[in-house]
């Protein structure tokens, strides 16, 4: 069989979740791949030092381009030159530009099989909706009795509203991209032969206006690869170690968690001798200040970002792994995001403490694995931490985690490819 052409802006050695997810999938597959990527832009990644992540069945083609526009053009040009080498193209977002290459190829060569693999939703991403806040000074049409007439007509309110809208340039800038992404998303769903999504909630969200194309969807979970872990590693302290690995920001914030630790610190004497909490990766300045204000620096430690393989070692050396999701309850009934780190956490075979929405991907996956789930309430988190400190939840049941093993996920992926080839052959 011919090689499969994969297009992904991020791929190892760049240390980015998107690329790592694809790498684990391809590495364990029985097919051979040419991956068109780049290594000049690390905007959404920490660094490009994952040099150990290589596999015999993967050949990487690096573009020297810096901008995505040039990368798209070069990608299409490369495919035109090498058309005969491939029957299958797989594109992986984010960013969504890789799908633009896939779309251009599919439009030009209709007999090519195009598999589009989604990271986050491309359009209407609820995570971004938080940025699209309505002015708090705007008088809304709903809520009939909520305003006084004097407030509605107040020049102060009107000026504040104008200023707020002026300042919200970020929102206006994203508008062009916003509509472009809606069109791109629609085209991907229409033209791709297969759509890969990482959980059913994401699929329901993305496909809600395209139910007639539901047959194209295949759910492939994020996975862990046992080969990357060193299970012999041990922690070097008697304390209970809780670690968070990954990116935090204003939306995916550890604020409630920090406040819960603060409450715990007031309740339990010498907490710093019993508990160690490590954050590896970006953390918002406001949250750093909160840690300082609460004087928790003996307990909560913030470390610089580390490589993927180092992060797996950190996981193995921890007692508990912390997951913090964005609270999107204002926009969604169910969380549609399955963070790739959950699969890596699962692979480390350590306990997971998740702060997430009660419904949706993360909660369902972790609940099925009998892990600890808390809402975003400080009181709830505090209660769970108390149980952890008092070792009431220290031994979780042995559960089957094989459905997140990269070997099994890749088998599913290989089956999908095989079926698609057969289906194409039958059509011809």
């Amino acid at each position: 069989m011919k090689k499969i052409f994969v297009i992904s802006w991020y791929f190892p050695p760049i240390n980015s979740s998107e690329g790592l997810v694809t790498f684990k999938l391809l590495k364990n597959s029985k097919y051979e791949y040419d991956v068109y990527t780049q290594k000049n832009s690390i905007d959404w990644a920490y660094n490009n030092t994952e040099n150990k992540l290589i596999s015999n069945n993967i050949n990487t083609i690096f573009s020297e381009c810096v901008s995505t526009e040039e990368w798209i053009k070069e990608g299409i040009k490369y495919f035109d030159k090498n058309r005969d080498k491939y029957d299958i193209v797989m594109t992986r977002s984010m960013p969504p530009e890789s799908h633009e290459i896939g779309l251009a190829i599919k439009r030009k060569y209709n007999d090519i099989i195009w598999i589009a693999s989604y990271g986050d939703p491309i359009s209407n991403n609820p995570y971004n909706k938080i940025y699209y806040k309505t002015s708090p000074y705007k008088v809304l049409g709903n809520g009939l009795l909520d305003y006084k007439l004097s407030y509605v007509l107040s020049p102060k309110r009107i000026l504040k509203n104008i200023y707020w809208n002026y300042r919200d340039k970020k929102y206006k800038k994203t508008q062009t991209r916003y509509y472009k992404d809606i069109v791109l998303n629609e085209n991907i769903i229409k033209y791709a032969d297969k759509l890969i999504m990482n959980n059913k909630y994401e699929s329901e969200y993305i496909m809600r206006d395209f139910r007639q194309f539901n047959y194209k969807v295949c759910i492939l979970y994020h996975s862990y690869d046992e080969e990357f872990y060193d299970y012999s590693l041990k922690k070097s302290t008697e304390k209970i170690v809780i670690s968070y690995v990954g990116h935090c920001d204003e939306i995916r914030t550890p604020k409630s968690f920090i406040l819960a630790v603060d409450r715990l610190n007031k309740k339990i004497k010498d907490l710093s001798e019993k508990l160690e909490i490590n954050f590896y990766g970006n953390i918002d300045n406001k949250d750093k200040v909160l840690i300082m204000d609460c004087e928790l620096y003996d307990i909560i430690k913030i470390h610089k970002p580390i490589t993927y393989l180092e992060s797996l070692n950190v996981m193995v050396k921890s007692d508990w792994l912390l997951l913090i999701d964005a609270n999107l309850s204002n926009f969604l009934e169910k969380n549609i995001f399955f963070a790739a780190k959950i699969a890596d956490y699962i692979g480390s075979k350590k306990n997971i403490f998740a702060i997430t929405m009660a419904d949706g991907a993360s909660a369902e996956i972790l609940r099925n694995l009998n892990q600890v789930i808390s809402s975003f309430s400080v009181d709830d988190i505090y209660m769970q931490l108390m149980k952890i400190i008092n070792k009431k939840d220290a031994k979780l049941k042995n559960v089957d985690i094989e459905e997140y093993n990269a070997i099994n996920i890749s088998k599913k992926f290989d089956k999908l490819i095989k079926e698609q080839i057969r289906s194409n052959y039958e059509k011809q």
Partner: protein
Amino acid sequence: MEKVLTIAVPTYNVEKYLTRCLDSILYDELSNEKLEVIIVNDGSTDNSLEIARNFQKKYPNSIVVVNKENGGHGSTINVALKLATGKYFKVIDSDDWVNIDEFSNFVNLLEKIDTDLVLTNYSRELVYNGEQIKFEYSKELKYNKIYDLNKFDFKILGLDYFFMATSTIKTKVLKESNLHLDEKTFYVDMEYDVYPINYINNFIYLDYDIYRYFIGRLDQSININGYINHRHDHEKVLKKLLQFYKEMDENNKKNYVENIILQMLNSHYIIYCKTNVNKKLVKDMRREILKFDNYIKEKYNNLYNKFCNINSYVLFHSKTKFYFAMKFNNLFTRVITRFFTRMGS
């Protein structure tokens, strides 16, 4: 060992929340023995019953599991009350929980108290931002003081009353009152707040923040859409409370019931005035609210007049046959109605 507190945990499809609720109640192993936790599974179709049974295995002396056909929130409390043997009775909804720092102390204190009603504070836990809003009664209500309900000045409570989340009531009192809540009906917590009042003679207010009320889920009945969907239940409960009020003797406690009814009337009209759903529904709802408005005017004229003195907005809409409220739910009507209600008052 005699149980100090019976906790009723109404349970319906709450597999995502039940563990947290029970963990919090049973957190302190020393006070567990004093508790009788009656989990009433109301025909759940998820794993709620299995979770409850697992807890029962772990705490056989504290947990009773009742599995029954679906009958609504009220039916679960009716069942739990029948079985209750504890000195006091409290309802904790399975998506809520208790403050583990204070709950065991509270249970220990209940052993020493003998008032018919024990009031505590509670906190609302907002789902959408993780914030906590603490509820406390008016400062005029003193902690640790025993109040005689027959002489109590209910004005002290302001707009508040004895909520399910703040009340712990003697089981004996509840049984004497023959408390029976409506089945398959929403908003029966209002019945729970009102019906036993004639049998409660005294109460004490304790400085404990016990109950954690998880609020803001999109599927909750107290969201505006929930109110619209269950508006007929709201009306049904309101009419029952009006009947109860009518049959009450003229005594001090009648002020308490009146206060609750006035607030429920306010909520009821707001449900109808705030809607801007589809045209067909708006038409139906306008017909309903007109009918209800006439019913209240005819049957409870004094109460209606009192209510209109508080809420002139409703008076305005009643006079205009709810045309503006239902037709234009926007800024224009808000401004116009405010202008006219001010003129009117």
